[in-house]
């Protein structure tokens, strides 16, 4: 794995563009980039043949939670098959393993103890110890993996928060000791809750270990949007420029932009999943810098211009695609009317088509972020985007 920062924002900004080179993927992934969420390694609804229709290589970067395989197949079977890439038939995809997925594997800090972090999973509450975790990692063989973290919600006591940092550091060392690659594929986990000092401490400590990048956890667990930038900066300021930074728990576009502004490169987000389940399709404009959205017309269907809910009866006879000129499979082949019908009759195809479009659109959002960074216009992009969403920031549902 090789990561290179290709453009750093000048003028005190921390946002940066980069390139991630991983052996199995023929072209480098450009960052900032989105990791697609998966269930047992495959997207929730988009089968691999349809995944191929999404833009490459951005749609080849997948987040996988080892905890999805707690019941089956066994680590031995997974090893026999040859690991994730073989098991899933996705030989050119890049898999980043991290236990928390914000959908089915939720950090349960009350169940966590000194032996390992606890998660709420479909199989009940499970405690994962470093040895067990590293067994899973060595059988799955992901391209990158995050070490175990004690993620706590924002309201815990100082003492509990401090303990979470101590444990996370110890588990990192435990995992590294069991790692056959000696940290070459490891993203050291960083926590610290809502305390700037603890965040700094954790970041500085993890940076001293022999890891190839960082996994930033503990966000999206109750901290407010206003306090987040300071916490993020406390982390990234303590990290070496040249190494990869991935974050979990920043889901919405506004949150992603906060992360980009702090210098994060990869984002796990469940936004697409929640939109899809709710029958929503993303429609927000992507060419924000080019056009002045303050003057863009308000939609007359009362939609918030960021997404439409295709369950609404207004779409019953709408023979237009979700977004005009969108080149995704869904918009090229199907109409709003058809998806409305599918949602009404509870057909799985609705979710498949929505996940394809939403993934396409959100990946395009990341593309426009990268474009803005490379053009030196990220701050303007950020500002314009927030202005356009100001009225909806409070009403947009926090999904993580």
């Amino acid at each position: 794995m090789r990561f290179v920062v290709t453009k750093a924002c000048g003028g005190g900004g921390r946002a940066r563009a980069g390139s991630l080179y991983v052996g199995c993927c023929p072209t480098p992934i450009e960052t900032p980039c989105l990791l697609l969420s998966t269930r047992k390694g495959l997207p929730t609804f988009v089968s691999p043949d349809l995944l191929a229709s999404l833009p490459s290589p951005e749609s080849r970067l997948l987040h996988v939670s080892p905890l999805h395989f707690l019941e089956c197949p066994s680590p031995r079977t997974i090893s026999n098959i040859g690991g994730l890439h073989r098991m899933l038939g996705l030989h050119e995809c890049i898999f980043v393993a991290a236990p928390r997925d914000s959908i089915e594997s939720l950090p349960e800090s009350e169940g966590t103890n000194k032996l390992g972090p606890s998660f709420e999973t479909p199989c009940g509450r499970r405690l994962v110890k470093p040895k067990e975790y590293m067994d899973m990692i060595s059988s799955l063989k992901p391209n990158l993996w995050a070490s175990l973290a004690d993620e706590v919600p924002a309201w815990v006591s100082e003492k509990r928060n401090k303990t979470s940092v101590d444990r996370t550091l110890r588990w990192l060392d435990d995992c590294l000791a069991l790692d056959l690659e000696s940290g070459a594929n490891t993203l050291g986990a960083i926590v610290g809750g809502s305390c700037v000092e603890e965040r700094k401490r954790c970041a500085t400590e993890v940076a001293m270990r022999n890891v190839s990048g960082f996994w930033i956890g503990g966000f999206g667990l109750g901290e407010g949007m206003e306090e987040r930038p300071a916490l993020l900066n406390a982390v990234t300021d303590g990290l070496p420029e040249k190494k990869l930074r991935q974050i979990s728990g920043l889901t919405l576009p506004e949150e992603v932009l906060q992360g980009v502004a702090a210098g994060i490169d990869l984002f796990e987000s469940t936004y697409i999943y929640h939109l899809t389940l709710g029958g929503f399709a993303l429609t927000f404009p992507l060419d924000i810098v080019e056009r002045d959205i303050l003057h863009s017309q308000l939609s007359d269907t009362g939609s918030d211009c960021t997404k439409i809910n295709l369950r609404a009866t207004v779409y019953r006879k709408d023979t237009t695609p979700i977004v005009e000129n969108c080149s995704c499979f869904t918009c090229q082949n199907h109409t709003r009317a058809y998806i409305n019908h599918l949602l009404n009759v509870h057909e799985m195809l609705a979710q498949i088509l929505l996940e394809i479009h939403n993934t396409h659109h959100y990946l395009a959002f990341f593309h426009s972020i990268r474009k803005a960074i490379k053009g030196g216009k990220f701050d303007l992009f950020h500002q314009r985007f927030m202005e356009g969403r100001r009225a909806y920031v409070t009403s947009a549902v926090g999904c993580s």
Partner: protein
Amino acid sequence: MALRFEVVGRFNRARAARLTLPHFVCQTPLFMPVGTQGTIKGLTNNQLEDIGCQIILGNTYHLALRPGADLIDELGGLHKLMNWKRALLTDSGGFQMVSLLHLADITEKGVTFQSPVDGKRMLLTPEESIQIQNKIGADIIMALDDVVKTTTIGPRVEEAMYRTLRWIDRCLAAHQKPAVQNLFGIVQGGLDPVLRDICLRGLVERNLPGYAIGGLSGGEDKDSFWRVVAQCTAALPEDKPRYVMGVGYPLDIVVCSALGADMYDCVYPTRTARFGTALIPEGVLKLKHKVMASDERPIDPTCSCMVCKNYTRAYIHCLVTKDAMGSQLLSYHNLSYMMRLSRDLHTSIVEGRFPQFVQGFLRAQFPKGDVPKWVCNAMEVAGIDISACCAPLTSSQN
């Protein structure tokens, strides 16, 4: 008539044909997946095309409820709504009504039932069924028939058969688009050969574009089942397609094809996929079974579908019945299997090796030679020698 049916190969009663419909040129024998509500559950159009689906079925009852026949018409027909480029077939709506609804009652006027939406009394007449199907716009539409359960006995069966004949005339009169939609009649008559014969003659007289054999696949014993199919295929015209409704078990399809039928439909392959069962040459594979958790083979090593080329039974095991992706992948495989079966039937007949195909099929399903008696009887009538596949008779069986 809006179709052409050309037989391109034969073996005794079995035939391979080219069926030209307004939207697609199909090869028979063929299996039609059921896309009840305007979609095959969990599969996209291009996946269906990749698999080789030629015709899919839509259920008139469901589509008339949601999104509604008028809306479909306004949007240009079901093909347009789904963006499906190949052929479609709709049933009359009668079967769902009788099987899904309480208090459905059949009178000479039509099928009266309680609307599932608001409980009002409603009536589906032959005229209305055809009108709805005209709006949906499928390549093949089905006449509203008076269908009774095969286990029914007594005068009801005869009443239903004669009514079906009276209703076909009403359907024909109501049909507004004969140039682009083919109205198939459905042969009824229960398990009674005399009634079946009357119905057959009545329908053949009407010179319809195609014929369906209905009233089967409802719990009758297999011995009665094949005999009705054999009687009907013998009496139906050579140069028109024959559709056995509700048949989806691969074994049944092979037998019916040997007896001279061309088209089949059933929810079985896709439904059984959602319950974790895969179709394989040996029969079925229950992926939910614990033993699958460590089985590193593909579902079917002889299958070249996307699922068998990429996934192990162990991985599919962990998905089935728990994750949407499991249903999708298994449906994909099962339909691939059915399309492969259809292609194999067609090609083996064309290439003059149909009996060998049948023998190979039976050997895979019955490796111990325990081919069911009904299959042996049917194959005898079909003129196909399967003695090599059957275990030698013991003296007690003689």
